[in-house]
């Protein structure tokens, strides 16, 4: 009996330790990725990386200035398209809609959120690239914007619903109309949460490559305006990493480090903004 109990306790201790090992392994991956990128990419990051165009094959040096500007442009377009739809859609869901319409909109958003990014790329290709007959920043921004919508919409709605009803009632009791209540009381009360939602959506699409492959396409030179094929940082990482040239691979590490750094910083800032707000509770 005693031996059996000791055996059971041993099993318990062993298995519980194993779960700890699983957790450590899972988290260690993050530090491994970061460490590896910093180690390999850190050496390749220099002033040229941010200011020069890519060099032709065989010529070492050069940078990714066009990809950095291109990513910024694409993300600007994406935010311009995705954030308003997500934000105002969320206001409709949280403040105006009946439960049936809300269900349909939420369902559509969840569906959209689950669509593989490459399929979003096909959609943007069919809708924007085919009619205009050429790849463009518009098409890439559209694809990324679609991916921002469900993330912004669903979490903004959560945060709007998290605003206590007493605030709504107080504003209405003072004679404010509904939209005035929303604009001056509810949205300001939930602004940290909303900002977090938008930042997380932004970070999510900043690293997307698949929907850009046949929308923004890529471009080794500057791309003036928004109506031409345009380069982006994640696409550059992809092209350079699978290339056989050592100098390109070196730059892929550097670009990967810059990209991951940007995304992690935005993520951390977003969560920090949220953590400092006390009005909105964790869902």
């Amino acid at each position, binding site marked *: 009996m005693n031996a059996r109990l000791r055996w059971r306790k041993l099993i*318990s201790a062993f298995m519980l330790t194993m779960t700890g090992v699983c957790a450590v392994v*899972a988290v260690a991956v993050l530090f491994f990725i970061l460490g*590896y990128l910093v180690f*390999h990419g850190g050496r390749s990051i220099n002033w040229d990386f941010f200011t020069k165009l890519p060099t032709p094959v065989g010529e070492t040096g050069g940078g990714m200035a066009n990809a950095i500007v291109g990513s910024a442009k694409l993300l600007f377009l994406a935010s311009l398209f995705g954030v308003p739809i997500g934000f105002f859609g969320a206001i409709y869901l949280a403040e105006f809609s009946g439960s049936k319409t809300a269900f349909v909109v939420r369902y559509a958003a969840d569906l959209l959120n*689950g669509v593989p990014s490459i399929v979003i790329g096909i959609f943007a290709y*069919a809708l924007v690239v085919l009619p205009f007959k050429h790849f463009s920043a518009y098409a890439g921004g559209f694809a990324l914007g679609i991916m921002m919508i469900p993330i912004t919409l669903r979490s903004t709605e959560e945060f709007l619903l998290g605003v206590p009803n007493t605030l709504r009632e107080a504003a209405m009791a003072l004679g404010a*109309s509904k939209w005035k209540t929303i604009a001056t009381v509810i949205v300001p009360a939930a602004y940290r949460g909303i900002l977090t939602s938008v930042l997380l959506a932004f970070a999510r699409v900043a690293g997307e490559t*698949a929907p850009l492959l046949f929308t923004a396409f890529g471009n080794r030179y500057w791309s003036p305006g928004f109506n031409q094929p345009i380069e982006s940082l994640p696409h550059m990482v992809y092209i350079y990493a699978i290339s056989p040239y050592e100098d390109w691979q070196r730059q892929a*590490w550097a670009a990967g480090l810059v990209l*991951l750094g940007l995304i992690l910083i935005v993520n951390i800032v977003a969560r920090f903004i949220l953590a400092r707000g006390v009005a909105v509770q964790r869902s």
Partner: protein
Amino acid sequence: VSTTSIHVPSADPVDDSRSFLSRLRNGDEIARLITFLFAASVVLLTLLLVYELWIASSLPRQKFGLAFFVTKLWDPIAEEFGALTFIYGTVVTAGVALLIAIPLGIGAAIFLAELAPQKVSDPLQFFIDLLAAVPSVIYGVLGVFIVIPLMRTWIAPTLKATLGFLPLFHGPAYGVGFLTAGIVLAIMVIPYIISVSREVLLSVPRDQREAALALGSTRWESTWKVVVPFARTGIMGSIFLALARALGETMAVTMVIGNTPSISSSLFAPGYSIAAVIANEFTEATGDLYLQSLIQLGLVLFLLTFILNGLARLLMLLTAARGSGTGRA
């Protein structure tokens, strides 16, 4: 008295329209309409996506019908297209990924939810969330520069020496292949399994644990035989979610799977997946049938993830209804 009692009902509709007008003047109706248009556009975009995928893949549907899914041949020059090799590659890589990710992910979730004090658990969860935010192309880079060389020099030789009698581990190991893609995918989906499973485990009522412990079970027995079974539908939900991610993942798989349309029983062999073939051939596709066959593959991918995500949400709703939130929230 009688005049007022007649007056009151007739005043009602007047009053109503006035309140509508005043609401309109306030801007409430306008605000409602504007926000409704934005919300409706989400639904319209989603419908449009399904519609576009459907009409843009009509040619292969007419020409090949269901044979598209069971034909191995993919020959752009002869204009013969079959999806079997890509479906095989997608299913095998996702399967390998889940085999690795499920035990690791659930183990880690148990640790975070049951064992670790909140002071340890919350920061670890924060890192897990960051891990879920790492873009797939970065995982691809790591796959190319770390997993592929490791596969060539260490993983494949070790597997061959120990499990080489299985047909799964036969043949030459080039580094790229199903197993490599599966490993990279596993690393990518583990954060999803952990995050969702942890939430589900935390929502298991405290008395379930206490009852098991009071009956003399060890900590592990109460976790494994009481808490985990209680949360199993939600955990299944997290697995479906991870599977949907793994099936649709493009960049990382494209970079490590080898991009060779072949079906092989060996996990070391290079292969191809649905997402990878779309990524590689879409811009080079000449001819409508070729392009539309690729779009049809996209439609397949869409339907697969649609079904899996639906199942995942259903399972998580079921646990949410059962858990009734007495645990740590």
